[in-house]
């Protein structure tokens, strides 16, 4: 197929919570380290944005191994938020991004609302593009047993307190381990979040039957990968009907087709997680594939298909 010279290339750029992205394809927290490891393999400047591995106030050692096990079309992980802590992050990891022209979203997690606020305030002064509140890590123990993102009140409180403390663009990463994700997303919107990231991992487990032992040392872990895509997609669809703030669709994206499913279901941007492990070039292939789809389907602007699922009347 020849394109006439005058046809403009399709526009993949979007605005997400006030942030300008070249394209809607990001990499998800915890699956891309702090960018350094993949920089040799992937042109970071081509990515829509990078979400850094979640950081906490103090450095965290993380969980005992084994931490990873493969399941049918999925991966269980129990990293346990191993990270260098906010100070080392700022001093040693952040400078790396100066050389790059790619939006950096920093993911933070605290055990209490105060910790979130403190982390956010510390980052407010730094050269970063936005903040993602990870309210949904299944691999750490919470005081009240439930994660923040499983509790509408706790979610509302932490989001509104962080919102008041900072002016940075603010995303909230939600958990799929809930009865009604749309109501939690609404809480985020009410509390002033600029966007929601859907979804973090599902709590799951696997057993070594020969030894009758859990495959992960922590017994349970977070399930990611293509296995969870149909559920993640449904959640994006439900949340899109419930809120107006933009959605970042996450969960099992391996191809441009997968990413487009999320966009059509209502995600303004998407993020690749486990896909980075499978093939570090997946984010780039997804960007190229979305562009090709737009050319073939005469879509001039990616925004024009966000949430445009044609549902038959029933």
């Amino acid at each position: 197929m020849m394109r006439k010279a005058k046809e403009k290339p399709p526009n993949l750029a979007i605005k997400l919570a006030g942030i300008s992205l070249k394209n809607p394809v990001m990499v998800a927290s915890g699956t891309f380290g702090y960018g350094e490891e993949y920089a040799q393999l992937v042109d970071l400047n081509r990515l829509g944005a990078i979400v850094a591995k979640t950081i906490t106030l103090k450095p965290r050692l993380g969980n005992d191994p084994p931490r990873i096990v493969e399941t049918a079309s999925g991966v269980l992980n129990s990293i346990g938020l191993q990270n260098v802590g906010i100070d080392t992050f700022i001093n040693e990891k952040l400078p790396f991004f100066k050389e790059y022209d790619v939006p950096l979203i920093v993911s933070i997690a605290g055990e209490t609302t105060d910790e979130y606020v403190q982390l956010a305030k510390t980052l407010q002064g730094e050269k970063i593009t936005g903040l993602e509140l990870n309210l949904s890590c299944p691999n750490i123990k919470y005081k009240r047993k439930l994660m923040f993102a499983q509790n509408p009140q706790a979610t509302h409180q932490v989001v509104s307190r962080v919102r008041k403390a900072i002016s940075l663009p603010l995303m909230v990463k939600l958990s799929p381990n809930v009865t009604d994700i749309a109501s939690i997303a609404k809480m985020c919107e009410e509390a002033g979040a600029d966007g929601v990231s859907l979804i973090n991992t599902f709590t799951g487990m696997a057993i070594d039957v020969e030894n009758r032992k859990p495959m992960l040392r922590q017994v349970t872990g977070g399930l990611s990968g293509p296995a969870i895509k149909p559920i993640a997609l449904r959640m994006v669809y439900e949340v899109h009907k419930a809120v107006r703030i933009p959605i970042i669709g996450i969960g099992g994206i391996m191809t441009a087709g997968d990413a487009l499913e999320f966009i059509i279901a209502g995600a303004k941007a998407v993020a690749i997680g486990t896909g980075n492990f499978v093939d570090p070039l997946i984010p780039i292939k997804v960007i190229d594939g979305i562009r090709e789809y737009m050319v073939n389907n005469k879509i001039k602007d990616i925004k024009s298909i966000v949430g445009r699922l044609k549902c038959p009347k029933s």
Partner: protein
Amino acid sequence: MVQVDAKILENRELGSQRYKMALSAPQIGCQAKPGQFIHVRVSKGFLPLLRRPFSVHRVQGQKIEILYKVVGKGTEILSRKKGGEYLDILGPLGKGYQLPSATSKISDIILVAGGTGVASLLFLAESISVANPELSILVLVGAKNREELLCEGDFRRLGCRVEVATENGTRGYKGLVSELLEKCLPLSGDRPKPIVFACGPSEMLKMIGKISRKHRFPCQVSLEERLACGVGACLGCVVKTKGSTYTYKRVCKDGPVFDAGELIWE
């Protein structure tokens, strides 16, 4: 570290479900050091989802070799690949063995291989004998039985002394290769301590770690853990190492080779 679509030159069964695969990957071969590995996508689809790691077994000009055993679905798929097909590989990855420097006056080298652990040790033996031809290398090769012994001839051709242990006694010493190591140690006071390099099942490495502590010789071990990314980004592959209390190091990036003394065995 590069990602390449490498052409399979050969994929040959050595018997007992062990295969040797040769790949055309000059970009990896020219950088690879003994103990490093490649991370292989065994299927173009998504089953299995994750890549599988294999040590660089040999580098010869344009080509690199791996030596692997079929133990599950990933290696099973790999074993059915034919020459002429292409494999998506990442490499070379990880931190390999610290070679004894060519200038320092040194002691004997002992390599201890269990099962497919020989894969990385042959590359190491080759490199040492090129860099330091005067060094004498003793190789202890262990396996379940004589059929599963690997690379004995290759080591001998390099001029190494080779001793063999089989668990069922069908060749050489009857028992574990770690026991054989303890028997072979030159413990007489004035001989300099040997340097030991070991690769194999984790139980074996743990025992060798103990022996090295007891007899106080330097010892490097190459570990296996389940990997996801293979490049140090996901923190999925850690082992416990000594620190103020303890700390986790990544097998794929900080290893797979570690000083036995720095590990905390569970």
